[in-house]
């Protein structure tokens, strides 16, 4: 088992806009160890989501090296990305990104089904997580019937059930009010204490403070903050 979950070396990413090229990520170096809870903090447009997409294997980068749980990502093909996303990463999005036509339970078990597990087996394996997040009563509901905080808990459950090496959250509290946001952050701390590795992206210093380590991204450059 690798102890370094994320290792980014001189990652560069540009977007081509006509003739001009926008250099979004500039020589990003970042290392995240197993069990760490890191916040990536930066203002709007600084390149947070771009970085998160690269860490989450949802987008490609131009130059540099990226090892995720020991896997050399730059050498992977698109098809393998899918498997890596499923096994290594649990995503938590600002807008929850639940499938609206599925029930809560169906949403939560999806990552396991994709691994070839049957529905009954997957449901059983998810029960602990569901109980931990207090969603037992809500399993047959549709996402639209839940509050924002509850929907985010469903998304977190979905991210957890696959037991990924890394929990990757982009503005997880962005759509929530202060108290639901605080609850999600408390949950993250619990998960951190249980040994999960968490990378959380936010523009809010208060939110970032609940992490044990803060990394600032300003104009596509990464600056290490004080360790918590």
């Amino acid at each position, binding site marked *: 088992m690798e102890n370094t979950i994320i290792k980014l070396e001189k990652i560069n990413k540009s977007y081509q806009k006509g003739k001009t090229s926008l250099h979004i990520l500039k020589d990003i170096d970042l290392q995240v160890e197993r069990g760490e809870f890191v916040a990536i903090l930066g203002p709007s447009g600084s390149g947070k989501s771009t970085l998160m*997409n690269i860490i*989450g294997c*949802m*987008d490609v980068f131009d130059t540099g090296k990226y090892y995720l749980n020991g896997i050399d990502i730059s050498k992977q093909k698109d*098809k393998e990305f*899918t*498997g*890596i*996303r*499923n*096994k290594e990463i649990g*995503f938590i*999005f600002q807008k929850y*990104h*639940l*499938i*609206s*036509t*599925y029930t809560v339970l*169906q949403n939560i078990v*999806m*990552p396991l*089904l*994709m691994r*070839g*597990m*049957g*529905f009954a087996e997957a449901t059983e394996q998810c029960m602990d997580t569901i109980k931990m997040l207090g969603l037992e009563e809500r399993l047959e509901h549709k996402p639209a019937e839940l509050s924002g905080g509850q929907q985010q808990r469903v998304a977190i459950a*979905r991210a957890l059930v*696959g037991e990924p090496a890394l929990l990757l959250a982009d503005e997880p509290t962005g759509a929530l009010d202060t108290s639901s946001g605080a609850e999600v952050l408390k949950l993250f701390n619990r998960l951190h204490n249980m040994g999960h590795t968490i990378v959380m992206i936010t523009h809010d210093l208060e939110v970032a403070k609940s992490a044990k380590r803060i990394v600032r991204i300003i104009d596509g450059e990464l600056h290490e903050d004080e360790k918590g």
Partner: protein
Amino acid sequence: MKKREILRLVALNLLQNKFKVVLTSVGIIIGAATIVMVIAIGRGGQEKVAEQFKNLNAGAIDISYEEATENKTEDAKMGNGNFGGNQNMPGGKPDSSQKNGTDNKSNQNGKSAMGENGSAPFGFGESARGGNSNDKNRMNQDKIVLSEEDVEDIETFVPDISSVSISYTTKTTVDGGELEEETSYTVAGVTSIYAEISNLNLQVGEFLTKEEEENKEKVCILGATVAKEIFGDAVSAYDSTLYIGGRAYTVNGVLKEIGSVSSGISADDAIFVPYSTGVKYITGENISPTITVIAENLNDLETTIENIETVLAESYPNAEFTITDAGSKMEAASASNDTLTTLLFAMAFIVFIVGGIGIMNVLFVSIKERTKEIGILKAIGCMKQDILLEFLLEACFISVLGGALGVLVSLGITPIVKMANIPVSLSIAGMLTAMVFAFVTGVTFGFYPAWKASCLVPVDALSEE
């Protein structure tokens, strides 16, 4: 992903998107039903034509004279070619009284023209027929009435024919049997050969004979429908007495049901009497008979028709006869039916395109909406082929459902269309075509957008709102 789980998702999505499923299906249902109906109507028409001509002798040539046609500009078939260009054929056609005045002249011109250019097909000329005094009688009649003499002329002078018959129809009141009051029926005066020419068979009894014809006997043969109407059934009709125009006739036979029209007579609905009997007791000389010639050589009906025209022109110069052969009647009917079928197919094609575009739009929009779903599935690690299989199965289900319902709808409309007297003939081939249409459009238009969406990187698919 397990196939069973994919199927579960398909079912879940179909149930969740009921409205969209219905919307998409409606397009497919209408398209499929239209295709089934179009093919059924086309086939129905063809079968109807075939049915009508089933019992028709393809070599039958009908010749009749209708005053109404006299003033029409007629086609070349009518035989004026022999006299073409002479002064007796002015732009305005002569009426019948004028015609009598010019008949002799034109007759001579006609004959000399034939003599000179040798266009008479088998060498008869003035010498062959000049001595026939009947010619003059016939020519000088006020009204042209084809007669048994013309039949003899045709039999004698037209080669390659197997038989010639003459017939006419009239409406006369009939009484007897179970009839409560005098009722008007079609009475046909025919010669003994008519049954053979028209492929008529008898349920009971025998058809009219030559002797009955010669003796002008008061006997008759009933069409199947007539026998049923007047006597209840064929057996009771046989040997009964029927009063036609107030005179008693013995029923000598009843025809089998045939459903077709021959020499302008619908056999099922007619009462047949010997030709001469009818003339003597029912119609008098006021008839418009049809001569039916059976040609032996089906491939050269044109020549036979020309020969008939030449022979008739000897007796009736300037007269224009309506000559139709069964073969070209069939051709005309099936040609017009082919036109109808082509039109229907054009319509089906338009439905195909319009329906296809409608289906495409609904599916495209619904998948556009589901691009985010595809993005989520990809982000959390769903393989492209699993996503594609899921959407493909959904599209297949909608298509097959729509196609099947479309076929059911067409089964439902068929009786209504039949009530409107449109011949329809449903066929397995038509239904299969409709199913194929449903499947192809549904799957193509349902699957293509899904395939496109699944090719997006998850970030782009997710940013789609």
